[in-house]
């Protein structure tokens, strides 16, 4: 997994609530057996019409907005457990998603793929979306070590599981950790009485 320490970049505003994993990556694109190429189809049915023409009104097709930070409405990533949604977000080039609320499974999948989900208050989110819309070249800075998000809206300390923070900063994943616990796991199996 790629390390994540600090990032300064512009952001893409997507002020839609309850963005579900079927919108992030529709099921018909889940037939691949590797992790490549999902970025091309992220938000597919919002980005393109049924004939494959670009929907000019969708923010990812608006040249004004770019950057590796996605700022999205409340309850981002609800729905399915498909990690393809995280692969699609990462494949498109997003490294951070900011929202006022994340669905559990998506949050975990994001962290397991080096994408940092940052939860902010609904008020902060609203102001941030307004600022970015007004000034698309607004720079945001994320410092994972200090758990700090800086934007024109203000500095904010965000929460992250301390274990996951270490994983992100060092590029470790859970498999490394779990394999190191092999003996403890085997001892647990032997002790099972039911």
């Amino acid at each position, binding site marked *: 997994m790629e390390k994540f320490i600090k990032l300064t970049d512009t952001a893409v505003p997507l002020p839609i609530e309850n963005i579900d994993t079927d919108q992030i990556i529709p099921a018909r694109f889940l*037939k691949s057996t590797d992790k490549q190429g999902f970025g091309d189809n992220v938000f597919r049915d919002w980005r393109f019409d049924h004939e494959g023409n670009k929907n000019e009104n969708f923010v990812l097709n608006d040249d004004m907005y770019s950057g590796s930070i996605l700022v999205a409405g409340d*309850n981002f990533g609800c*729905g399915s457990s*498909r*990690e393809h949604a995280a692969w699609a977000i990462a494949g498109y080039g997003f490294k951070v998603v900011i929202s006022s*609320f994340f669905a559990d499974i998506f949050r975990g999948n994001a962290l*397991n793929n080096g994408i940092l989900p940052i939860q902010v208050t609904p008020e902060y989110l609203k102001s941030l979306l307004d600022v970015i819309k007004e000034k698309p070249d607004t720079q945001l800075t994320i410092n994972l070590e200090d758990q700090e998000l800086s934007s024109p809206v203000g500095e904010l300390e965000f929460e992250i599981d301390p274990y996951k923070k270490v994983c992100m900063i060092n590029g470790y994943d859970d498999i490394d950790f779990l394999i190191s*616990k092999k003996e*403890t796991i085997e001892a647990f199996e032997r002790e099972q009485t039911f």
Partner: protein
Amino acid sequence: MAGKTLFDKVWDAHVVDTVPNGPQVLYIDKHLIHEVTSPQAFSELEERGIPVARPDQIVATADHNTPTVDQHLPVRDLLSRNQLKQLSDNCEKHGITLYGLGHKYNGIVHVMAPELGITQPGMTMVCGDSHTSTHGAFGTIAFGIGTSQVAQVFASQCLLLTKPKSLRVNVTGKLKPNVLPKDVILYVISQIGTNAGTGYFCEYAGNIFEEMSMEGRMTVCNMSIEMGARGGMIAPDQTTFDYVKGREFAPEQAEWDKKLAYWKTLPTDADAVFDKEYSFDAADIEPMITYGTNPGMGIKVTGNIPDKEDVNLEKALAYMNFKKGESLIDKPINYVFIGSCTNSRIEDFRIAANFVKGKQKAANVNAWLVPGSQQVAKQLIAEGLDKIFTEAGFALRQPGCSACLAMNDDKIPEGEYCVSTSNRNFEGRQGQGARTILASPLMAAATAVSGKITDITKQLN
């Protein structure tokens, strides 16, 4: 010290280790896999040279991507065929039991495992599918995981997790006639919203759940994820034990007695405290339908779409082509889907068959009836339900996830409405531009007969 919840008891019994100030290592008893969310996990292990730790605790099925007609023929879609072949190859290579297409145990993962007795009370179960919450109906901690976690379970039979908070949903009283488990859970989600359960594991309690069949409990627990909860559980009781006993992989004799004694200790202690609790009166629940693009956008079938200023509502109604404040009664419907891990069990088809018996499917309706498994399909025939459906103008398809997520050819055309017994009415869920209305199998059967949304309470009274 306060007592323990059902969830606490099962969770605590599976904690292998705790990272200081961090997550816990949770042991997983059963790992279910299917073709869509497993290939990248197998590749991950192979790239790192890690073996599958406990292949005998994994069971595989092919369901998401499979056709529901002509299953004896090679799968036509090349990408689907490749994905199914990879599952077979991976299972063979790693010594994992696979119930592939055509196998007598094949079916939707959350229908197949309970009916074979693989799902048992007190277990921890995972699958790369968010509707793994279904198995919670047995008093099991069961939840959906991402593919990275599938690889973790392959590698270690464990997961690193932070214990979720506890939530209890109580429904007590007396249900009105024709109110089914699907209506109960759609009602609950419509009341508390699609993220009320996020960060929580839910327990459903009260006489309404106690009186439900296992099939009904599975329908309820299945949709826990639609209110954001990773899982939902119901305390195991005599209904649970009677269901599990005698099934293919259920414990037998002395082993059964030992397990049964343990299972009886699992229900939540009277003095246990939940982090959050909701209570509902069963009498307030009526047959439900959804009008929007998330499962929380539900109303009673005789109700009106809310009329309020709300950008999310407006966006959803623009997609559905409905208006604020309108009633959906008499809306013409051309597609009906009875199936999915929510409602494709034998009881669901009994309910639908009982309604359509002696009636005829409306000419405008394309109805897709998709049993959840080969076992359900077999049972349908044994009970003569197939004849009732055929006489009423319906055709039964072969098992699979089908039009619930439209990964195979079972797609609802653009702009068409589908009254569906599945679990998600997201934009494009059943096909690009398709408009989904979630409902119970009874509502779906009634819609198929009338060709429009119908007040089921009036029809049956």
